[in-house]
């Protein structure tokens, strides 16, 4: 049995240790907010937090995250101690989303950025977010959303 703490709850998992975290979350724990996009760490749709760092869950085997603290999109607001994480609030206020598929990952990456860089520049945003791709092309809205989230978080 492998212990895994996800969104504050510790689970004992009878899952093969080489199972990617993405499938542990979706299929074994029913947390389907984290998305499969490419399965090869190329799109960022599967981004979660592991001990506060953004990690692509499609490429992280269970064995590599056992005993560590996982936060998914479902647990992000609780992480901030609010009804909505500032990034989620900003995403609504700035109308960031189109189809929505990439945005679990976008939001998780943005939240990880703001946790380390509370007032990111456009260059910081480029560096942090270039690995999260959006087929709908909402990049300008994502940038605006991150700047708005930084302002909301500062309140």
């Amino acid at each position: 049995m492998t212990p895994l703490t996800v969104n504050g709850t510790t689970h004992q998992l009878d899952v093969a240790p080489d199972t990617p975290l993405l499938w542990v979350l979706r299929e074994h724990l029913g947390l389907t907010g984290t998305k499969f996009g490419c399965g090869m760490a190329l799109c960022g749709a599967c981004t979660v937090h592991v001990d506060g760092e953004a990690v692509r869950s499609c490429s992280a085997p269970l064995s590599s995250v056992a005993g560590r603290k996982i936060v998914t999109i479902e647990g992000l607001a609780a992480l901030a101690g609010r009804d909505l994480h500032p990034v989620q609030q900003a995403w609504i206020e700035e109308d960031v989303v189109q189809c929505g598929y990439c945005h679990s990952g976008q939001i998780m990456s943005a939240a990880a950025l703001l946790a380390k860089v509370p007032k990111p520049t456009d260059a910081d945003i480029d560096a942090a977010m270039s690995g999260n791709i959006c087929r709908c092309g909402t990049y300008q809205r994502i940038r605006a959303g991150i700047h708005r989230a930084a302002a909301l978080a500062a309140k």
Partner: protein
Amino acid sequence: MASFHSIAGFHLVTGAVVIVGSAAAMISGCAADASRTTSSESAAERARSQAAFVEIAAVLRHPRCINCHTVTDFPRQGDAGRRHAQFVLRGPDNHGVPAMRCNSCHQDSNQENGVPGAPHWALAPLSMSWEGLDDNQLAEALKDESKNGGRSLESLLDHMAHDPLVLWGWNPGGTREPVPVPHETFVRRLEEWMATGAVSPEPSP
């Protein structure tokens, strides 16, 4: 008339002088031969040392090694050494930037989906960048403890022989070409280079 004794003594002395003289000549001749031998052995050993390093350099310049020993603010990918996709950056600590750390994607082992991995996956510090260096500069950089992470030759050998991230170069996973020189051969060349004085190849003209 000289007495027998004095004649004999003369011969004795003369003989002794001859013997001593011959011995001296032999000794100085041997010394000369020895210094010539030492000199040619030294030259041969130096040449062997330099030749060993040329083989070592071929490994260090292979994409599996030099893609992370870059002089740039980003890592490289592939056998062509193209810029790493997704605007991956070195960051201030050689481990990426917030939300795009090296271990955001790279874990401790190669993954089935083709993403490579090894323990402490990261860029080598800029002091250990090898791009653009000729054989002489590469050898000097390797030996320079102010650049190589404070490693003595012995600890450098240990690093090359045992560090799992170094060993990844020979087991890179996916369709990546491993370092073509066998690792055991690489380590032997390092040992040979170090045992012969770790001599750097001559600087390029």
